[in-house]
């Protein structure tokens, strides 16, 4: 469903992403992890057509995101870490707006169901400024899911959610995957990745370090001594100091 070949993004001489290739099939949830500045957000932006790749191709549902942008974008939804909403549109007006953009004829029924599911139906006439951070995120999710995308990207999806919101978000992601969507999640929360992702891609300095199913990656690192939890895999793969490495100074002094 998502096919990436030789994706490279340069800013002048700075290499943000280099020769990245991978594929995500329908029903798969891929975790995109890496240290700060690894190129995760740049990758997601290239995959969603927000920024053009310098080299390489990205195909969404068989459509090239650059050459056949309309058809490719019609199939995807991108949820940024910070919900991005229009200040002067109400909750329902957002849905109305998105319905026209994505040509969703039965948006009223779907929209009502989504608002009910996300528990913001009572905020139908509220402006974003009247919503809490979590509610804004729910609205962004409702807008993104309105056209039933086949490819969904999440950039830090759990930011700002309360425990119940986190549980619901995880369930929602898994439900979409079961329904056949290809999902990519960029997150620093390794436990989230371990819990809901079936594939893993670790980036460092814009380059791919590991790519494979969770089982493949775990098997690969289990051959080495020590714990092979995802956290340990991450530290080993990226060469960052982790539990197995010499103790780093604590963030908070005693």
């Amino acid at each position, binding site marked *: 469903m998502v096919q990436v070949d030789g994706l490279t993004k340069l800013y002048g001489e700075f290499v943000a992403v280099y020769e990245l290739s991978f594929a995500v099939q329908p029903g798969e949830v891929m975790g995109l992890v890496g240290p700060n500045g690894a190129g995760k957000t740049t990758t997601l932006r290239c995959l969603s*057509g*927000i920024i053009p790749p310098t080299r390489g191709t990205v195909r969404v549902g068989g459509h090239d995101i650059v050459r056949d942008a*309309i058809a490719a974008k019609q199939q995807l*939804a991108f949820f940024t870490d910070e919900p*991005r909403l229009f200040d002067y549109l109400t909750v329902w*007006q957002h849905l109305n707006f998105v319905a*026209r953009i994505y040509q969703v004829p039965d948006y009223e029924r779907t929209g009502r169901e989504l608002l009910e599911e996300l528990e913001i139906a009572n905020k139908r006439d509220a402006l974003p400024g009247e919503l809490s951070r979590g509610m804004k995120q729910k609205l962004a999710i409702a807008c993104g899911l309105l056209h039933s995308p086949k490819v969904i990207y999440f950039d830090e999806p759990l930011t700002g959610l309360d425990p119940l919101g986190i549980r619901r978000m995880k369930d929602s992601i898994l439900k979409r995957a079961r329904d056949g969507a290809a999902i990519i999640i960029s997150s620093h929360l390794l436990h989230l990745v371990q819990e809901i992702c079936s594939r893993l891609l670790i980036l460092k300095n814009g380059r791919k370090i590991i790519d494979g199913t969770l089982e493949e990656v775990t098997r690969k690192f289990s051959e080495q001594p020590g714990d092979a939890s995802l956290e340990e895999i991450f530290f080993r793969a990226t060469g960052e100091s982790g539990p197995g490495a010499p103790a780093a100074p604590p963030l908070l002094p005693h």
Partner: protein
Amino acid sequence: MITALIYLQYHSFRNRLVSRFKRLKQPKYLIGAVVGGLYIYFYFFRYLFRGFGGRPGMNLLISSEHLQLFELGGALILFVIVLLAWIIPHERAALTFTEAEVAFLFPAPVTRRTLIQFKLLRSQLRIFFSVLLLTFFSRRFGGNAWIHALGWWLMLSTLNLHFIGSSFARTLLLDRGVSNWLRRLLVSGLVVALAGAVWMWARQTVPVPGPADTANPGAILDYAQRVLTTGPALYLLFPFRLMLRPFLAPDAPAFFNALAPALLLFLLHYLWVIYSDVAFEEASVDASQKLAARVAAVRAGNWRGVKKNQKARRPWFKLTATGPAATALFWKNLIGVGQVFSVRLGITIVVILVIFGFAFADKVHSQGISIVVALFVAIALVYSLLLGPQVLRLDFRNDLPLADILKTFPMRGWQIALGEILAPVAVLAVFQWLLLLVGAGLLFYLPVKQEALFLAIAFGAAFLLPVLDLLLLLIPNAAVLLFPSWIQTGRDSPRGIETTGQRLIFALGQMLVLLLVLLPAAAAFTGVFFLLNFTLGPAVAVPVAALAATIVLAAEAGFGVMLLGKLFERFDVTEEQTS
């Protein structure tokens, strides 16, 4: 402790300056700084400060009697300002700090008094810039710039202290159970009592000008002067006159004579504020959060974010789920127009334009409301063309912070460009058509001989204006996509002299582009007009020529929309953020 706060203030200011100087390595800021610096020097500072010599100003040219009148008028204004500070506000005392200052200073072992001193110290920077600006304006009427600057500083600093002190006093009253309305009632009652006392005194001691003197402004001014300089009014206005005297001093010796009482007043205010023991922290936290939100909104080019209470607006038309996607953006931006243009703002604009109309009517010595309205229509039309595209920013200039979201939409660049730009075009066009209708209607009331020609001009303008609006809006929108960091829309948009310079360069650039774009249309108009004028007359030639020019402009606008779409497709959000 105060030294730590001075350290914070000093280094914040210094680092800000250093980062601005470092930024000058980039040509766009360097060029902007040079142009902005030259503009500010030649326009503001060239003649501002020339030592104590200065050119003789109003203070020297006018009589001491008139100077007293200025003093009294100024004192009355200050009295009203101070009075309003006691009547209008309803909030508890809140010193506005930045969110970082709240986070670091409020939990720190810093006394309330130190926080107040810090706040006062910081307000001096704002006062300094206000003094510069006010001195520039007041210096135009003559006088010594240094005296003006120091006079303004004393006045603004004392007023600033008074506002803080009065907010503390209001909070104390609230804590003691005196509600806002009771306070307003008491203060208003006191004012009425004082006004009554002044009136009684004047009635008994100052002879009222006779019926013959009512047309004589000198006699009325003389009466007002005598009322305000004797009896209760003398004492009532005395502190305000003390505040004003350094500013109005005609020379250095007079200034130093007036300085001591004004400084004493300033000092008393300072002591009042410093020794007030009022809890302002909670309200300050709230105020700081609101300030941060507003600053973020303004820097994002989102002036609606400045509004305290946004209300949900009804859409202007029902948006169906199918059809051209660009209509969705048009629909969205029209809702945004409802946020910007409230009924109150509409009334304000009309009132201002009518006042302008009257002012112009007076100049041409014309009489009759029709001419005034006609002038108003003409002025409003010109202003709508010149200022409309700058004021109505519900297009890329407003949505650029959400460019990444727009780019995920399954739409072609030109569709997004068209959808983004249509709302301001529609608003301006409707406004201009209304004006043209009013103008055409006025022909029945005006002593115009060639009604047909005027109607033809209005008819032609009705074609031309919307396309002209579209072109005028395309230019700044293209500029914002080509040079987003030059046009102030981003969340961390730069400020300062370099920004002034950048704006000047862009204003010039926009004018040049507009001229180039108008040339082919002007040529088409001229050609068709001369062709038809001889055979069919101007009443036919004008609208047909306007139609020809409209077609040329529309072709250019169509090309412009395509170009704007391409620019948006090529617009790299991340590159702009990283640069």
